[in-house]
Structure formats: structure tokens, C-alpha cells
């Protein structure tokens, strides 16, 4: 009897495309245990069926964007403003329920689809016919930590791989000189859960989100030697890598048959390539003045998020598969967690992203990238129809809004409805599982078949749930 390798998976490697030839480099893509299937060119890069999307940009509004003050227009709130309505709960997450509060913002209908949008998103409003709205998203929890985990990983506890990591695990890299999965945090700080939101968890570390801070003194950790490495020069590095390869090859000669040793040699070649390509992704100097101003880089309010949106586009162009752009840091202020003062806090934060998001959508369309790029705008939960304090709103996992745009998406549509107060979902409730199933579906992945065994269970991004939301697909 023979003992075949338990993971016969290794035989299926990314042999086509992306410059990754051969078995030996399996480790570079994900360590010892690899995803069973490989992207197939006759499935347009999908692994289970034909893909419509090759790359994704997710815009995550950290803190819980208020649905009834942005996209979920509720006249009933205006009518019953100030009334005390018993919703049957003694306590919201951080307060006791106050009276009904109407949205302080004007709503108008836009586009052929007649979508209602409030005055906090004037520029995105102009593009509603490109967007498909999930109007009845629901969360299992009303607390930032678990809710952010749920939206990112499909679980309310820490320790599960996030969407970007799963996609990297499932599909690998589009290009070998840039990472598959990049995270651009709000320059003010990391979101609730910090790196927990973009962790590869038990998937191999190669699938972890690479944290890039375009504005920081050191945008990518360890891309370049530290300042005190005075003796490191371009020449010393080139010769050093040559020396290293020579020593490693000599070492390998006596140890043939160990593909990991070969992979490590190769990893230094890729590292050198990344050192060249990564700064190029971040260098916005080559972009036109018109582009700079379209993204709002000439305005200090919109510049931080705008720079991240423009950088995201450059990353997608260069083969990053999944870019996650965050608005808002964790903490009591300057994010979407508007407990205290919706009339002031929400326009403040929405004003930072409205123009950059509209510019990103237009830019992607103009460059033909809408054809294979999915854009997802989302948050961890919504907010309450009643007041917290005088004009704030508390957390509400009962209903919130997400929108999708780009490849495979039927623009101008919506799916699901909340109740008259936007307190709970009322019709066609969708969960993170459904959103994730839909994202994977568009990438050519059957969400029930993308699994990884950990601690006794075959884990999935969608746990044991998830339905593809056909209603918003083109």
C-alpha cells in the first residue's frame, strides 16, 4: 500500500496566469495547505463557475452608518416625530430608548430609478442608477466588535478569516508583484477590532490583508530597511541578494526534493519586485490635476479618504484583487458611530467620503474597470429610529443599508425593505452571509465549496448560511 500525500491538493496549483509556474512555488501562495481548485481561464478566473468579477473594492463605513438618514427614506418618522413608541425593548446597546426622531436631512429622489437619498450624499446620489441597494441588511448583534467581525468574517467572535483573506485563499494573486489583499485604513486610525477585521486567522498568513497607510512616513512595514541601516545601498542589496541566492542554491543542492527551500529562494525575487511596484501604486504624482480634484485631493475635508480611493483604483489596476478602504477610526468621535448628534456628526463624516466615492465610481467606469470590478459600500449595522440623548441614535442591528455596483450588478435596483420606522427589516432580509455569498458568486466561487478545516470543522465564510442575492445581479 502506498501513502499518498494527504493533501493531494498540492497537485492542483496555479499553473496558469500570473507568472506563477510550477509546484515549487505553492508555498508562496499559501503555505502548506492550498485551496483545492485553481482559477480556470475558461471560467474567466472563477473556480466553480464563470466569474463576472476579478477584483473588488469594499468601502467600509466604521461605526454603523445611519440608514434612515442616508438611503432609507421613512416619512413615518417625520409624522410621528417626538412620540414615544414602545418597540418592546428596555435597553438599546448603550442607552434607554428615547422618542422617535425624524431624519434632520432633506430627502430627494434621484435618477431613473427614483431612489431616495438624503442631503448627506449629494454626489453619490447622482449615480444611483449604477447602484443596487440591499435595503434590509440585518446583523445578529448591536455591538461594534462582534458586528464588525460578522460583516468581515461571517462570525461574531474573533479568529475567523475575513472576506479578503478567503478570496485570496480561493483565487490567489492576479499579479505576483503586488499583494492579493490590501487594507487602507482611515488615516485617523484603525477601525474597531483593529487588525482583527482583516486577519487571515487560521488561513495561511499569506492571505492576510496587507495594511498600507499611504500617508504615513512608512506606508508598508518592512518594505525598506530602517533609517539607521546606513550601509544598505541599492548596490549592496543587489549584490547581497545575489550572494544570498548563491548560498541558498548551494544549500539546496544537497537537499533536493524540498520545494520549500526553492520557494524561499523565489520569495526574495518576489520581494524585490514588490519593492519596486509597491511605491508605484502609492505614487499619485502621475495622476492628472483633474483626477486629483475629482477625488477631492485639493480639499482638506475630502483629501484623506479621496487619496485612499484613488490609491485603491491604482492598486486594482495593478492586480490587487481585494482592496478594503475604511472610513472612520474606532472610538467615540469622527466616525459613523453617531450617538450624540446626528444633525452634525453625520454630515461631517459623510462629507469626507461622498465626493471621493462618486469619483471612484466614475473613474472605474471611465477606465472600463466597471466591467470586472465589484464595488461594495457597507457598514456593521444601522441606527435606532428613536433618540439617544437629544439628537443622537444608538446602535441597531435590526436593519441597515449596503449597496453594490460594478461588474455583474444590476444598477438602479434594490432588494428588501425595512419597516415603517427603519427599525427592523420587513421584507427580504439579507445577512452578511448573503452579501458574502453574492460577492463570492460574482468571483466564480460557490460559497458552500470554499472551505478550510480548522479545529474539527470545515469552515466557510458563510458559516452554514448564505444565499446569492439574484435580484441585484445583472
Amino acid at each position, binding site marked *: 500500500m*502506498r501513502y499518498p500525500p494527504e493533501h493531494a491538493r498540492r497537485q492542483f496549483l496555479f499553473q496558469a496566469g500570473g507568472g506563477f509556474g510550477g509546484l515549487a512555488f505553492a508555498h508562496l501562495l499559501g503555505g*502548506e495547505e492550498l485551496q483545492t481548485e485553481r482559477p480556470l481561464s475558461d471560467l474567466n478566473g472563477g473556480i466553480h463557475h464563470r466569474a463576472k468579477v476579478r477584483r473588488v473594492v469594499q468601502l467600509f463605513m466604521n461605526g454603523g452608518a445611519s440608514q434612515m438618514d442616508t438611503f432609507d427614506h421613512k416619512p413615518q418618522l417625520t409624522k410621528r416625530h417626538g412620540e414615544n413608541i414602545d418597540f418592546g425593548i428596555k435597553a438599546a446597546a448603550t442607552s434607554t430608548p*428615547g422618542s422617535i426622531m425624524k431624519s434632520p436631512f432633506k430627502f430627494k429622489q434621484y435618477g431613473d430609478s427614483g431612489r431616495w437619498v438624503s442631503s448627506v450624499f449629494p454626489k453619490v446620489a447622482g449615480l444611483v442608477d449604477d447602484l443596487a441597494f440591499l435595503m434590509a441588511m440585518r446583523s445578529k448583534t448591536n455591538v461594534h466588535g462582534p458586528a464588525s467581525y460578522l460583516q468581515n468574517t461571517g462570525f461574531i467572535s474573533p479568529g475567523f478569516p475575513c472576506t479578503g483573506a478567503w478570496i485570496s485563499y480561493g483565487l490567489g494573486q492576479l499579479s505576483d508583484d503586488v499583494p492579493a489583499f490590501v487594507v487602507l485604513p482611515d488615516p485617523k486610525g484603525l477601525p474597531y477590532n483593529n487588525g482583527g477585521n482583516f486577519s487571515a486567522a487560521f488561513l495561511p498568513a499569506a492571505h492576510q490583508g496587507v495594511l498600507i497607510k499611504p500617508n504615513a512616513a512608512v506606508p508598508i512595514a518592512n518594505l525598506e530597511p530602517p533609517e539607521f541601516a546606513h550601509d544598505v545601498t541599492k548596490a549592496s542589496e543587489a549584490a547581497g541578494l545575489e550572494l544570498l541566492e548563491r548560498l541558498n542554491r548551494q544549500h539546496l543542492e*544537497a537537499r533536493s526534493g524540498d520545494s520549500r527551500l526553492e520557494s524561499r529562494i523565489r520569495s526574495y525575487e518576489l520581494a524585490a519586485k514588490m519593492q519596486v511596484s509597491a511605491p508605484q501604486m502609492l505614487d499619485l504624482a502621475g495622476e492628472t490635476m483633474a483626477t486629483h480634484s475629482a477625488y477631492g485631493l485639493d480639499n482638506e475635508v475630502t483629501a484623506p479618504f479621496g487619496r485612499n480611493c484613488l490609491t485603491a483604483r491604482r492598486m486594482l489596476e495593478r492586480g490587487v484583487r481585494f482592496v478594503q478602504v475604511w472610513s472612520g477610526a474606532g472610538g467615540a468621535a469622527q466616525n459613523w458611530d453617531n450617538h450624540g448628534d446626528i444633525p452634525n456628526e453625520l454630515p461631517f463624516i459623510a462629507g469626507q467620503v461622498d465626493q471621493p466615492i462618486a469619483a471612484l465610481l466614475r473613474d472605474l467606469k471611465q477606465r472600463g474597470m466597471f466591467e470586472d470590478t465589484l464595488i461594495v459600500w457597507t457598514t456593521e449595522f444601522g441606527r435606532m429610529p428613536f433618540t439617544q*440623548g437629544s439628537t443622537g441614535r444608538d446602535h441597531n442591528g435590526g436593519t441597515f443599508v449596503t449597496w453594490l455596483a460594478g461588474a455583474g450588478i444590476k444598477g438602479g435596483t434594490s432588494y428588501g425593505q425595512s419597516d415603517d420606522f427603519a427599525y427592523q427589516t420587513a421584507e427580504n432580509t439579507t445577512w452578511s452571509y448573503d452579501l458574502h455569498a453574492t460577492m463570492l458568486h460574482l468571483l466564480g466561487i460557490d460559497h458552500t465549496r470554499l472551505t478550510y478545516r480548522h479545529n474539527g470543522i470545515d469552515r466557510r465564510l458563510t458559516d452554514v448560511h448564505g444565499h446569492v442575492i439574484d435580484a441585484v445581479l445583472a
Partner: protein
Amino acid sequence: MPRSTWVVCAVLLLLTLSVRSSHLLGAESAIRFDHDVRPILAARCFKCHGSDKTEGGLTLADRASALAALETSKRAVVPGDPAHSELLQRITSDDPEYRMPPSGPALTEQEIEVLRNWITTGADWPVHWAWRPLEQPLTGGSAAAPIAWEESPVDAFILSVLKEQELVPSIPADRRTLLRRVYFDLLGLPPTYAEIVAFAADIRPDAYQRVVDRLLANPRYGERWARHWMDIVHYAETHGHDQDRPREHAWRYRDYLIDSFNQDKPYARFVQEQIAGDAMFPGSTEAIIATGFLATGSWDESSLQSIQEDSIDRKIARYIDRDDIVTTVMSTFASSSAHCARCHDHKFDPISQREYYSLQAVFAAIDKADRTFESDPQIAQQRAELVAALASLPARGKQVDASLLTNEIQQQAEIWSQGLLQKLDRWVPVRVKQLKSDNTTELKLLEDGSVLASGVAPEKDVYTIEFETTQRQVSGLRLEVLTHESLPMNGPGRQPNGNLHLNDLRLWLLGPNDNNTRLKLIKPMADFNQGGWSIEKSIDGNPATAWGIHPEVGKPHQAVFSLDTPLDFMTRPTLRVELHQVHGMSHLIGCFRFATTAVPGDLSTEQPPISPGLIQIIRKPRGHRTDAEKAALAEAYLKPQLQTELDSLPPPSMVYCGTNQFTAIGTFRPAEKPRVVNVLHRGDVQQPREEALPGALSVIPGLNGDFSGASSDNEGHRRVALARWMTDPTNGLTWRSIANRLWHYHFGRGLVDTPNDFGRMGSAPTHPQLLDWLASEMRDVETQGKASSSAMKHIHRLLVTSSTYRQSADNDPQAAKIDAENRLLWRMHRRRLDAESIRDAVLLISGHLNTQMGGQSVRQFNESPSNHVTPNVDYLNFDVNAPANHRRSVYRFVFRTLPDPFMDALDCPDAAQLTPKRNTSLTALQALAMLNDKLIVRQSQWIAAREHMRPLEDQVKAIYLTIFGRPPAADETQVVCNYVAEFGLANACRMLLNTNEFLFID
């Protein structure tokens, strides 16, 4: 035992082995129940006939139930007789009414054939290997100094399987390779060149055994193996989740692990201490610290502490937190995936949902929190005496304690009380004339002169208070914030957590015709300041800062201010105070009172701790006091003295652990008795079913998993019952689990490749008999005292001295054709160094490793407050030369959601999940980390600095010796010299640290 006897034993052993193994492997060609039959039953039958389903009287739980008579008195399975086996009749029937399964397609012919064959050959239905009773497969004992393959039981098992596959073991590794292997394995550090030379030259037959004994006695051993254990139990020092708060007292558990490994603690005791040490071994401090194990996992501070107590999210979080504890306990010690039965019965293993919730019930009173414990018995006794003395003081009752009435005490009390009186009279309450809120707050003057806020609590407010002083001179103002039962947490604030934030306090002197003067306040002082929210902030004019009192809520506080220019009037002045409270989220003062003083000079917040009743007593002339009053006075005098003495004792130690002995923080309170745990339908807290009683699994034959006898209200009994269940000699899971973990870390891969899952979905053992032999050896060493040392080091010694371990790691293409992954161990596995070993080895090589043991973890980052609970953590700008960088990696402070990028790139787990085995990835980002991380760059410079004065060739030789433990070959000297000549020695060191030769262990 004489040598000849050993040989005889070994031959016997081999004979027995080959017989048993061939039986084992022979069975594989026939139908195997778990492999072939069970999947069909699971897919098509279990839905109606699973472990606790009995449709038509048929339960397919085990062989007995499958063979039992049905309602129809037929039998589903009659071994050897397919024609009379109802199961087969049903699945092959054409009658849709009769056919099974009733819905979905019929079984395929192939599936039917499998079941028919299975029944024909006797319907074997073996108990899954992991749950079988543990018996040592062979007698023979362990050799003290095995040299040849045949002499060690470990090798005999390995060799017999190799022979069956026509494989032969590899030649032994050379001494340098072996020494490097065993050093990293046991210590996590490389040998020095001198140690390699000495070992190579040691011709004594037991040279290697001597090395192993030396390493096992080295304290670095405990550090190395504690770090493995920290992976298994997902130890880190922050909460995880969005409020990722540092745990200041978690490190004691890490030190406990290191000590336990170093002192070779018996494994059963090690397990018991971690599950229930506090209850099983009262009086043992290390047993209390051991329960840090229960609190290694994440903790959702938002849901369990910050949010509203009666929200649904609090309830969900409690179950999830206990799930973490249950998962950690069962995965760590029993390699059981019991946690898979949270939403439904386990799909593959006989573990019911009810059993899962029984495990939750074991921990029903446990929370993760800081508890105190006494580490010094002498101080513990002093503290106990003082506490008792204090407790006996209010001996008032009907009988007055005569000892309080002695002249001496009364004299002292009198002097003391007169001093108090002076202090008391310093502050004179004001007369409130007018109260106003800018928002919805209703302010009401109470009888004692305090003001209570009620009505709808707004987000923000400004209170304006006008008052008249009763003094003509005013040099200071006192603000008392007071508790009141109407306030959340009893106040003194109105924020749901009892806090308040006073952003700005403004004082005006009111003159005629609105001619008001703002008075400048200086020298603010408060009896308590919230971290980052001190009293100075209330007069700094900055509305973004404030004075706060969290977490000291539920008690009164006071702040005093001096007037820059004291007032001195002919008439009593009218003053106005504005209390600006604009932080938001109802950080408002709930109850307060003002007083003024005429006494100039430095004011203090010292508050005589006396009640209004006592004030009356003090004001009475001494002769007019009753005995009861005298006693009360003496008590008031003595109490603070005892209290001061008590306070001056060093505080008790703290450890972050699983406990119900902790101080409440807001609504996060200890459970006085076990909380009610329900079986949750589909794992949903909104669908509770029957109450779960404490218990464990019933899967181990002969081991009772029902603890309902230990139920009661004593939470400790529940955990003790589980600890006993876990360490029972009949619980083969526990012993197999640890034996496999030891194998896993020594060989790079477990005999069972899923160290946390010994269930049916886990891997099967490659060498089941070897595993059982090791497991029972370990158990019997402990229970029967079979070896001189305790079980752990005994097994370490057996494994690392085996010939299997000492083989070369070189490849053999012929052998690789048969067993490419080397699962049968025809050679040693080559391994990449783990993150900690890389870091520690580099420090050792550079001469900068600080081997100081224990204590608070070193934070290898700059930490600063953020606007959230989680601080800002900056690895990038942390001083690379800081002494904290030189400690061993096991002492690093591991921040769950903000991991160190260098360690992260090298696959160091972030402790969000249990890590029974590490991934070893090889990525471009990892290459960049090894090249450019400042630690590597700086240590390279330091290695170079030590050698740079010598001639070039000697320099290169020196760095080869320190980094690789060997001299360079001639061609290596040549190329490296060339490189050094042009780019310097430090660059060369850095490249050598990046080589595969350094990063892999052969």
C-alpha cells in the same frame, strides 16, 4: 536488565508488532466501517435514525442498537446474514412505500454493495480509536540508553511499519546537525560553536544522553515548551474585540507554565490546576494562578461590560464567552471538538447538544477577570487579623465593649475629635438661591443642601447655581459630587456607568446691575481623578477636556479650588457657578453640593470620615456622652488607624483568570452562584430549552460524564468534577492528546495530524499502537511511578533519544515515491524555525539575549492613549535598542488585534484562535521582514561590530561559526569575503541570517 534480555524482549516485541500490524493493515483492504460504511449511514440514515433518533424503533448509534430488535421485531442488521437484515431489504426495495430512505434518490448500487459486504462480513462496528480504553500495547518498558533501532520501543513501532512498506530508516544525522536540532527543539535556541565542538569530540557512549539531560534541566526548556502551550491555549494579554484592553495581570499564568514545565509537574496535576486549581488545591498560590488558563481567550468587553445590562447582546455574549472556555478546555486536554455541538448534535462524533451545554454549565459561574490572591503567607496573616479586628469594631449592639471606654482610649479619641472639628468647620455650606439647567435636566434642592438632577438626562447640559455664602470671607470653593439612589450605579454621575465629566467650572461674583466678575480659580485638587481626566481639566478653559471619576463610581467625591484673590466683604457675597458638562452621552453630575471656606492657604480634599451623628457626639461636652456614644467615638478613632495599617500592607497579588472572585466593574459583576445555562435551540439565546446540568461527555466507555451530583450551588465542585473526569486514568483521550502533542512538537507533525481533533473528522493516527504505547507510558509513569522523572521529561527523553528522531533529514527519491510526505518517518522532517526561535537565536548570536526570567511582559512597542479603550500601539517607532527588545520572545506582550508585524510575517499566531499547529508560510512579505525589520538589521550590525577588527577572512570565519556553527568552505570564504570587502560585514551578517541554512533545521 542485562543486554541479552533486552535483545530477547526486542525480538518478541517485533514479532508481536508485526502480527498486530498486519492485522491492522489487512483490515484496510476489506470494508472499513468508519471509512466506508459510516459516511453512507451518516448521509442517508442518521437524519431519522441518528444517535438520539428512533424512527420506527431504529437507532444507528452503535453496533448494539443497530442489531437490536425493531418495533416490527425484525432486525435492521443481522451480522453475516444480509437476507434477514431489514436495512438491506429496505434500501433495495422497489416499493416506494417500503423503500429507505423515504425521500431523495435510492442508494447507489455501489453504496448498497458496501453495506451488503459489511453485513456479510460480520457488521463490524468498532469503537472509534480515540475513545477506546487505553492499554499499553506491549510490555517491555523503556530503555534507558537506546542506541540501535531495536532497543527503543518507540523505534520498534516505527521500524515495523517502515518494514511493511519496504522502507528503511535513514542514516543518523551528523553530530552538528543533531545538536542544532535538539537544542532548538528543547530550548528554542541554537548551540554555540564551542558546544558543537565539544559534543563532536565527546566519545563517551552516552554523550548524547548527557546533552539531553543537560538541556532538560536548563530553564530555557520551560520557556520553550511554555510557548508551545501558549499557542495551544491562545494566550495573549489583551481582550481582543473592539475594546482590546491590555490585561495587566495575565503574565502570571505564563510564568506558571514556565515553572510547571521546568519542575516537570505531573501532567494530571497540571491539567487539574488549570481547570480547577483554586478549588482542588486551596492554599496553593500556583494553583490559583493556573486558572489563568480559563481566561486565555478573547473577552468581549463591549458586550459584557459596557453596554446596557438588560440588552439581548449581553446574553449572547455570555454564552459565547463560555463557549470559548469550553472550546479551550475540551480542545486542549481532550482533543475533542465538543464545540461543534453548540447549534445541533455533533454531526460526526457521539456528542449531543445537551452534553455541550452541560460543559457550559460547568463554567456557569466563571468570568474572565482579575482576582486577588496572597503570595506571602505572613502578610496574608497580618491582613486577615486586621480585617478581623476591623470587622469586630462595630461591637455596639446592646452591650458596649468595655475596652472602648477606657480612660486612655477616650482621652486619645477626644484629642483626635477636636482636631477633626477644626477641619470640619473649615467648610461652610452655601445657601442655594437659584438653580437653572440649559437643557432638560430638573434640578432640585434637597434638605441636606445638596442638589439632585432628575428628569430626562440630556446628552449635554450647563447647570447654573446661584448661592449666598454664609461667610464674608471666601478663599476656597468645594464641590462635592454625591451618590443618590435615583442615579445610575448610584451616581454620582448620570451616565449609565455612573460617571460624569465636568468640562468647565466657572465662578462669578454677582454685583449690582449685572455687573458680574469672573473669579479665577487655582490649585484644583480632587480626591480621585479618572485616568486622563484630572481635575485640572475642569478649569483649563478647554471644552474638550474634563474631570471624571470613572471607575470609582457609586461613591461620593469632592474637588476643592482656591480663589486666586480671596474675597473679603462687609456683606455676604452672592456667587454663581456654571457647571459646563458638554462631553455628551449624558456625562452629567447627578447630585452635588457646594461649600466655601474662609481659611486661606493650601486646601486639601481630606475628608474626615465621620457621620452627622458622630459630629453631634463630638460637639457634646465630654461628660455628657453616654457609654454608647463614647464607644462610637472610640470606634471612629480606632477604625482609621486599623484601616491605615491595613492599607500600608503590600497589596495582594493579582492574576487574570477564570473566577467569580473579583470586584465588579459597572454591571460586570461576579456570579454569586452558577448562572442558569439552557440548552439553546439552534444555538440561539432567544430559543432556550431545558436547563443544562453540569457534565462532560459520555463517549468514553466506563467513564461517567454526569456531574449532576456535583451540581448544587457550589461552582467549584463543578470544575473539580470536570478536572477529575479529564485526568481519570480511564480517560484515554487526555493521555493520547498530550502524547500526540509532545510528538507533534518534537517531530514537526503529530502521529495524529489534527492535534485538537481526535474525533471521526480528525486524522487517523499513522501509528495507533505507538500512540497508545506513549499515552499509557505517560499515564503509568504518573500513576505507578514507572520512571525516575515525571511523565513529561520522561517522554521527551524517550523521543529525542530515539533513533527515529536522530535520523538524517535528507531526501531519498526512492522512499519518497512510496511515502512522499514522510508520514512513516523514514527520515527526519526538515523544519523552518518558528518566529520566536528566529528572534531569540538572532539575539543569542549577537550576544544581546537577556535571559532574565519571568515578570511583567515586555512591550516591544510605544503605547499611547487613543480616543478609544484600545490604546495606540506603535511598533515602527519603538526604540530598537530598548532593553525590552532583548528578552526572550516568550516574554513579549502579545496584543491580540495589533500584532507585531515582524512576528506576524513569520506565522506567530495572533491568539484569536487556538493554534494546535502553526502554519509555516513562505511569502514575499516574510522575506522583506527578514531583510528589513530593524531588529534583524540592528543585530546584524552588532554581530559585525564584534568581529570587524580582524582580518577579512577571520571575520567571515567568525560569522559562519556564530551563525551556522561551522567554518565556511573555501568557496564560501571567497564569495563572502568579496562581498564584505565591498559592502561591509553587517550586510553580510544580515544576508547569512536570511539563508535557508539558518532558517531551517535539518
